[in-house]
Every structure is written in C-alpha cells, then in structure tokens.
C-alpha cells in the first residue's frame, strides 16, 4: 500500500491521488452494492405489482434514469447541510453523503433496466415454472436466475455510472483532499490548475481500473453459471 502511494506521489502533484483512488473504489462498490439490491428489488416489485398509475411510475422511473447528477447533488446537499432537514446526521462532506447521492442516481437506472428485461422474458419463465409445479418463491427465484445476464448488465452499468460521476460527488463530498476527493474530482481540480497532462493520465488510470474490474466481473460471470450474480 505504502509503496503504491509513494509510486503515485512521484507521478502526480500533491493532490492526494492514492487517497482519491481509495475513495473512488470505496464509493463505487458501496453505491453499486446498495443500488443493486434496491434497484433489482424495486424492478422485480414493479413488474409483479398491479396498481393504478403504474404507467406514470414507470415513466418517472425512465426519466430519473437520465437525471443530471448535479441536480441530485444539489438536492442531497440541501437535505444534509447543517440547516437542512437531515442536518443532524452530519453527512455533508462525508463519503456516506456521497454514497447516498450516488444511490439516488444509480438505483433508478438498475431498477429501470431490471424492469425492462423482466417485461420481455419473465412471463414465459413463469408459465414454465408453473407447469413444472414450482411454488411462487421458487418461481421468482427462477426468474432471477434466468435473467442473470440482464441483471449483471444492469449492475455493471450502475457501476460505470458511479465510477465516472463527478457532479454530485463534487457538491456533496466537497472534494476534500484525503477524505472525499475522488478520481474524477481530482481530474477536475488538476484541470483548473492547468495541469492537463496529469489529469489525462489519471483519466486513463481510471479507465484502466474500470477495464480490470470489468474483466474480472466478466470472468466470474462466465465461469460460474450457478449462483454468482455480481
């Protein structure tokens, strides 16, 4: 760890690159994990549930899939600031606050993608499960298993969104060095200092990391068809 840190410090100016990488990973994994659980659950629920106004809810969901992160950032900021409704939780300028903002951004994406893939495939699977005499719980489990690829894709999309996001984490996290500075906000800072090359290098590093994580995820996803959902 210390070696990595020293190595990075020799390449980059004094902006806390190593910490930024740690914060980025911590944020991306946490936000993706929470959003995946929430999003897939809500997606399943939305597909199963029949209620008036469902079409509106779906339309709102689709709209939220493209919500500008900076808007969510502002909303969360106003919620958690000292004189905001959640001010007592002390979440402003913390990673917890950043996770909250990203969960709000990513959950609609995973939910919407889950719902869409369920819509086209779930009925056939259900019919099949029913003819085989499966219980409702078994049926639902089968649906999830059969749609593993689609759900995996939704989660990967969410992860990509999290790791690349800058608007919300800048506002809510505050880009505090060593605490809430992520790779993307570091790039933004480097640009503002006129140090373009280092910013670009860090951007490439971010992409390489995303590529490695993606490759690992693909490897496990292909290799293990039984119960590896991530």
């Amino acid at each position, binding site marked *: *760890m*210390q070696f990595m*840190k020293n190595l990075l410090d020799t390449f980059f*100016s*004094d*902006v*806390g690159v*190593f*910490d930024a*990488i*740690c*914060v980025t*990973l*911590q944020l991306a*994994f*946490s936000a993706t*994990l929470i959003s995946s659980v929430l999003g897939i659950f809500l997606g399943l629920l939305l597909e199963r549930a029949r209620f008036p106004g469902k079409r509106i809810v779906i339309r709102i969901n689709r709209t939220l899939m493209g919500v500008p992160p900076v808007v969510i950032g502002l909303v969360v900021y106003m919620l958690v*600031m*000292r*004189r905001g409704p959640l001010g007592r939780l002390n979440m*402003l*300028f913390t*990673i917890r606050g950043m996770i909250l903002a990203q969960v709000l951004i990513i959950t609609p994406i995973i939910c919407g993608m889950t719902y869409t893939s369920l819509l086209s495939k779930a009925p056939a699977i259900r019919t099949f499960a029913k003819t085989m005499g499966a219980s409702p719980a078994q049926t639902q489990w089968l649906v999830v298993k059969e749609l593993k690829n689609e759900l995996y894709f939704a989660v990967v999309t969410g992860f990509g969104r999290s790791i690349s996001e800058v608007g919300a984490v*800048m506002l809510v996290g*505050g*880009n*505090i*060095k*060593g*605490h809430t*500075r992520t790779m993307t*906000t*570091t790039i933004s*800072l480097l*640009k*503002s*200092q*006129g*140090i373009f090359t280092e910013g670009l290098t860090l951007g490439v590093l971010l992409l390489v990391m995303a590529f490695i994580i993606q490759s*690992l995820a693909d*490897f*496990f996803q292909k*290799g*293990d068809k039984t119960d*590896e959902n*991530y």
Partner: protein
Amino acid sequence: MKKQRQLLAAILAGTMLAAAVTGCGGGNDAADTPADTETPVEETGEATADEAQDAPEAEEPETGAAAPVEKKGELMMATTTSTADTGLLDYLAPIFLEQTGWELKWDAVGTGEALKMGENGDVDIVLVHAKASEEEFVANGFGVERFQVMYNDFVVIGPTEPIAATDDIESVFQTIQDDQLTFVSRGDDSGTDKKEKGIWKKLEIDPSQNPNYLESGQGMGATITMADEKKAYCLTDRGTWLKMKNDADVELQMDIVCEGAPDLLNQYGIIAVNPEKYPEVNNEAANTMIEWICSPEVQDLIANYGVDQYGEALFTPNANE
C-alpha cells in the same frame, strides 16, 4: 476449475467488501501532508459571472467627443474568477467597447489556468493576481510587459467565537494552529491558495500538523460555503465574501475575523500575450486595453465600482503608483 473460480470469486467479493467498509485499509488518514510544490499555477473557481452591472455612467465625456467608435473586433482575455464573480468585467466591457471599439470577451478561470492559456496563445491578454508567476510569465517570453492595475484585499472569515475580530493575522493563524480549529483551505494552488500558504510559511507554521486543516480543492464560493457548514475559518478575497454574504440563499453564520494586515493585500496585473511568440494574437487590442484600463478615468471607475451595491469599493486602483 469451477471450484477454483468460485473460490476466487468469494475471495474477490470479500476483498471488495472489506475495501468498501474500511476504505482501503486506512489509506485515508495517511496523506495529509501538503508539501509546498510550487507549480506556477493558481486560482480555480466558481465562474458564475452573474451580476451584470449596468453602467449608468457609461457616457464618458473624455473620449474626444467622438460618436461611438466603430466596432473593430474582439479581444480575448483570460482572467481570474474574482474579477468576473464581482461583476467588474461585466461593468467595464460595455464602456470599453463604446470608447475603443473592441469587444472584450473573457474566460474566468484560475490565475494558473489563465496564465496557461496565455502560454498556449489561446488568449490575447491576461488579467491575474500572482505577481511572481506573472513575472515568470513575462521572463519566459510569453508576455510582453506586466502593468499593475489595482488591488483588493483578503480577509479571514469564520465564527466570531473563539477568535475575535482583529487586524493581527499572526495571532489568528497561530490560534487556529494551537487550538486545532477547523480551517478550510482552497488547496488548489490558486492565487488565494498561494497567498494563504505564503502566510503560513512566513509565520513558520506547518498547517498540515493540524488535523482539522482541510483542503477543498474548489473555488472560493464553494470553499466559503464549506467553511460555513463546518463552522470553520477560511481566507477569502473581500469581493467574493461581500457577494456571498449578500447573495447566498442560506445566510452565512460567519464574519470577518481578520482584515487590514499588510500581508493580506492582493495585486492584480495585466499582461499582453507576446505577439512575437504568437503572431495570431490581437496585440493591437491588447495594448489598447492596457492603456485604457490604466487611464485615470477608468481607474476612477474601478475605484467606485461596487460602492452603491456593497457599501464599499471592491478594488483599489493603483496603476499610476
């Protein structure tokens, strides 16, 4: 093979979870030691140039009584956020157009980035505030000559408890250090940031020893907001402070705790980008600008700018000193 993969997957998932929970094995607190890497670079910022002040006294009698000058072209300026945020350029640009025929356009970035734009020949002229970097800019042949235009001053703001208002910057910074009070630094190597680091250095205090010394890496407005949220102290230019105090939605619960110290002055300089290096720059317009902004009439305009809105002038002209 399949077993191995499952095992690997379990290990990987475990590692990710551990990383997520612990935040990369305590890497977080390890790196709060900002060494003074003096890149010749400054000021970032919140470039919200709202505040378009109309120019009521735009009809200057001095311009040889000629009718409005014919429009000649554009002058591209790189400047700091403070000149744009305070609305000074919005105020001066129409007058400049009317009197000289050049249309002033500007990109409000940090001093560092502004100088970088000059070095790349992307702009015709720079108006910034970091004397050492400016002189280096000229020495390296990117700029023709540096002219001083005006100055404003910095103030330390924060809660009035436990530090009472004073003009002794040394005691303020020493108290912050000794009592480990929260202080939000720009941390972006901007002009303001350099000023702050310079004061710490002069007082021979190492602020990184203070666990509550934070670096926001953002513009002045965002840094003030953060300091307000954290009940912390910060160093800001007076213009941004006055504007934030006036215009911010959430009333700032902070006040000036230190002003008037000689260490807190902030000199602006204007430099034409060297046409020998970049023949395509608009040197004619740049020279017109320099002559214009240093003229007594325009210096007067600067001296009175902001008085009716904030009750005090934001800049003090000193081109002719």
